[in-house]
C-alpha cells in the first residue's frame, strides 16, 4: 500500500495537473489540495510543491507562499521526516521557507533562487540535471543510479542560486548540492547552466535528505510523447525521461 501524496495548490500555481498525472503514471497515489482546503493537508504521507507563480511571485518568487497556511503543514511534515519535493516555484518556496538547504536552524532562508544571469528574464530551455550526491543521500533519489542524468525543462526567471561565500561553502561541505546542470553526455560546464546558478546548482537537498528542491521541471519531459526522438520502448504514452525522478520519489513514499 503506497502512501498518499498531496500536491498543494496556491493561488497562482500552474503545473499541478501534469505533476499529479506523472506521479500517478509512476505508480503514486497523488491528488490536488487547494488552498481553501489546506486544513486537509495534515493527513498525507508526502508532498510535491509544483511550479507556477504562487501569489504572483510578489516581493520575490516564493516569498509570500512560504508563509502561507499550506506551508505550516508542509514544514511540520518535513520536520517529522516526511518527503517533500519542490519543483521550480515549489523549490523557490522551499528555499524561502528555509526548509532547504537547511544550513540554519529554524525557518529562515539562507540562500535564494535569484534573478537569472546574464539573461535577466524568463528562459525556457531543455536541460539535464546530473545527480551530484550519492543516490542514498536523499530518500527521494535513492532509486536513481549514481550520477543519474535527468532530462527536464528549465522555465523560470529566478533560478540562480545565490548565497554568501560562506553559505555556498556550507552547501558543498554539507552535501546539499543534489543536482547540477549538465550536458546530455553528463559533462558539466557554464554552457550547460541556463541561469548563471552558483555551483551550477539545479537542486538542493536538506540535511536530513527528506526535502529536495529542484528548479527544472522533469514532469515536462516525463512521457515518451514529450521527446518523440528519444522514445524509450514503443509506447508513446509511457512515462520516461524525467519520470525517473518521480518513480524514485514514489518508491520512497511507498
Amino acid at each position, binding site marked *: 500500500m503506497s502512501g498518499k501524496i498531496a500536491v498543494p*495548490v496556491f*493561488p*497562482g*500555481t*500552474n*503545473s499541478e*495537473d*501534469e*505533476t499529479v*498525472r*506523472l506521479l500517478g503514471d509512476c505508480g503514486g497515489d497523488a491528488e490536488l489540495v*487547494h*488552498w*481553501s482546503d489546506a486544513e486537509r493537508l495534515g493527513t498525507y504521507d508526502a508532498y510535491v510543491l509544483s*511550479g*507556477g*507563480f504562487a*501569489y*504572483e511571485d510578489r516581493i520575490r518568487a516564493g516569498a509570500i507562499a512560504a508563509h502561507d497556511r499550506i506551508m505550516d503543514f508542509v514544514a511540520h511534515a518535513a520536520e517529522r521526516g516526511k518527503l517533500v519535493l519542490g519543483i521550480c516555484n515549489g523549490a523557490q518556496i522551499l528555499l524561502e521557507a528555509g526548509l532547504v538547504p537547511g544550513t540554519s536552524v529554524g525557518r529562515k532562508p539562507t540562500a535564494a533562487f535569484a534573478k537569472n544571469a546574464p*539573461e535577466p*528574464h*524568463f*528562459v*525556457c*530551455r531543455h536541460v539535464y540535471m546530473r545527480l551530484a550526491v550519492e543516490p542514498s543521500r536523499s530518500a527521494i533519489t535513492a532509486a536513481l543510479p549514481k550520477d543519474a542524468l535527468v532530462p527536464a*525543462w528549465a*522555465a523560470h526567471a529566478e533560478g540562480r542560486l545565490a548565497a554568501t561565500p560562506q553559505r555556498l561553502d556550507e552547501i558543498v561541505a554539507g552535501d546539499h548540492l543534489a543536482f547540477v546542470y549538465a550536458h*546530455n553526455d553528463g559533462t558539466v560546464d557554464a554552457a550547460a547552466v541556463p541561469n548563471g546558478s552558483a555551483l551550477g546548482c539545479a537542486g538542493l537537498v536538506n540535511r536530513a535528505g527528506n526535502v529536495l528542491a529542484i528548479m527544472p*521541471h522533469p*514532469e*515536462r*519531459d*516525463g*512521457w515518451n*510523447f*514529450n521527446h*518523440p*526522438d528519444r*522514445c524509450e520502448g514503443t509506447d*508513446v*504514452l509511457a512515462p520516461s525521461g524525467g519520470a525517473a525522478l518521480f518513480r524514485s520519489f514514489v518508491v520512497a513514499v511507498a
Partner: protein
Amino acid sequence: MGNGLTGAPDVALRDDELQRIRERLGREPTTVELHAFDAQWSEHCSYKSSRHHLKRLPADGSTVVIGPGEDAGALHLGVHDGVRYAVVIAHESHNHPSQIVPFEGAATGIGGIVRDVLCMGAEVIGVADPLRLGTNDAKGHPGYVARGVVDGIGGYGNAIGVPNIAGDAYFERGFNENCLVNVVALGIVREDDLIHSYAPKGAEDWEIVLVGKATDPSGFGGASFSSLTLDAQESEVNKGAVQVPDPFLKNVLMRASYRVFGLLRERKIVAAFKDLGAGGIMGCSAEITAQGGYGAEIDLDKVNVAIEGMPPEVIAVGETQERLLWLLPADVATDVLRIYNEEFTLPQVAHNARAAVIGRVTAQRRYVLRYRGATVMDVESDFLTGSIRDELPYTEVIRHQGAVQELPAVDIETLFPAVLAHRDVASREPIYRRYDAVVRGCTVLPRGTADAGVLAPIPGSRLGVALAVAGNPRYGRIDSGFAAEFAVLEAMRAVVAVGARPLGLSDCLNFGNPRKPDQYGEFVAAVDGLGRAATRLDLPIVSGNVSLYNESADGSAVPASTIVACVGVLEDVAQVVTPGLKETRSALLWIGSRELVVGGSVLAEVLGIEGPLPSISYGAERTAVGIVRDAIARGVVRSCRAIRDGGVLTAVARLAFDAHLRGRAIGAEIDFGNPLCEAGGFLCEVSDDSEIDLTGTLRIGETIGGSELVVNGIRFSIPQLYAVWSQPLAELYP
C-alpha cells in the same frame, strides 16, 4: 477621448448614425446609451465595413463543430475512449493597444484570446503569437515596441500556465507606426460539454452572473479607440483606453471555471458563458441574451467596482480585463458563486474580485440598465446588437507583377549567409525562449524545432494537435490577394510537415483605413484570396477577426496582412515527424512547386530586385500534400520542412541545424540551380524513395556524414552557418 471618469460624451459615432439612433428611440439618447451605441456600433464590435465581405469565406465542412459567430470556433479532433473531442480555436488582434503600451497591450491580447476559448467550456491548451513589428533596430520606438510586446506575451502566458507553441515574427518598416500583435488560442473540450455564448432555450428569468476582476475605469472607450487611426499626439490620451492585465487573477479564474464546467456536466445543465471584450458588461450581456432571442435587465449597482463614484456609462461600457459572464438558472448560480468566491476565494485573490448576480434574462427583447434606481438605458436589444452595415467604395486591386528581370548570377557563397542572416529568416529563439513552451506537460514539438507546434492534449490519448501560423508581409506589400492565398498554403504546409492532417483555419485580416478606397480594396482582395484558397483546399475558417485602421500618420497603411492559423490532427502522436536530419545517405526530395521566381522572396530583398510572384496551382498543391502525407504514413520520412522564407536551401539548413544541436554530425550535399527561390513545397529527408510517386518531385541531393553543407559544389560549415543564423535578433532581444 474622455478620461474615463468624467463621462464626457465625446464619442466616435458619426452624425448619420446618431440620427438613426434618435429616430429609432424617438428621443435623445441618454449618456449611457450614447456610449453603448458608440461601442456596439464601432468597427471593432460591429464589423460594419467587413461582415458582408466575410460571408464569402467557407465556414462549413465535415470537421466543423462550431463555425464562426461565437467567441471561438471548434473542429472535430477525434474520438478517445468513445468520447468525441473538439479542438477550439480563437484568433484576434491587439494591434492598437500594443503600439501604445506594448507590454500591457500584448499581455491583454493573450488574456482576451484565452477567455474566448475558455468560455466555450474548453480547457486552454496553447497559444500562438504572429507578430509584425517595426524594423529590428534595437534603439528607438519600434525596438521598444518589439521588446515590450514579447515581454507582455511571455509575462502573461507563462503565468497562466498555457504553453506558447507557435508564432512568427516579421520585421519591417511598414509596421514602425502600427505593430500587429495577433494572438491565437487553442482549447480542448468534449463535444458534448461545449458551452455556447448565447442564451439557450428556456433561459427566461435566469440569472446574469458577472465574474472576475472588479470593474474599474481602465479600457473605457477601448472599442471605438481600436477603430480609429492612431495619432502619435493622441497616444498619451489613448493610454487610458488600454486595459490592465492580471494573469494572476486569470490563472485562478481559469481553474475555477474548469471546476464550474465539471459541476454543469454532473448536473447536465446547459448554460451560456461569454468573455467580456469590447463594450464591456453592456456589449457582452446584450449579445449573449439577444443572440438567444432574449433581453436583459441589469442593475449596475450590483457590479463589483474597484472605486466608488464611477459614472454608469463607465461601469457599463468600460473594458476592464479578466471578466466573464454566465447565464445560469438561479439554483445553479448559487453553487457557481460558491465555487468562485469561496472555493477559489476570488475576493482574496484580487481587490473586490468576485462572482456576482447583476441582473436577469428577460423575455421582452429590450436591453435595460438601471443605476441608483433610475433607468439609464432602455433600447431594443436587436437594434443595439443587430448587424449594421457600411457599404464603402473600394478600388479594385491591380495585381502588381514585378517586371520579369533576368536573374543576376546567384553567388551562393555570399548570398546564402546573407539570406540566413536576413531579419525574416534569422533564428527566432531570442523571442520564443522567453515563452514557456512546455507547461501542462503535453508538448510534443515545442516552438522553434519544427514548422508547427504539436501537443498531446488529452491524457491517455494518442491524439495530437498541430498548430502553425503564416502571413508573409513581403507578399502583402506586392499583392494583397496573393498574400492571403499564400498564407493559407504556408500555414497548411507547416502542419503537414510535422505529420498532421489539416483540419481547418482561423484568420485575422489586418488592414488600413476602410474609408480610403485603395486601402479598403486591399482588404476586399484579401478576403477573396483567403476564401479562394480555403475553398480549394477544403479548409473551413471557423474563427476570425478583422483589424482595420492600421494606418500611419502619413496616411499609409501597413503592408496587407492576412494572418492565418492552421490546426491539424495527428491520429497518433508517435507518427510525428521529429526535428533534424537523421541519417547519412538519405535522399533529399523537393516535393511540390519549384518555380524559379523571386518576387517577394528574401533573395529579392537581399539583391534589391523585383520579379514575378510564384503561381498557385491548387491541384498541384493537393498532389504534393498527398505525396508527403503518404510517405510519412509509410514511415519513410526521416525529417521534413515546408519551404518558406529563404527557400529550399534554408529548409535544408534548418534540418541540419537541428541535427547539429542534437549532436548528430550530418550534413547534406545538394545540387539545384537557384536554391534560394521560395516558390514553396516541401523538403523531405527519406530513407527510401523507391515507392514515392516522383511525379512533381525532384531529388536534389542526399545527406552526408560530417558537418558540412555542400551546395552546387560550394562547401559551408554547419556550425558557422548556425552562428550566422542564430545571432541577428540577439541585439534586439538581449
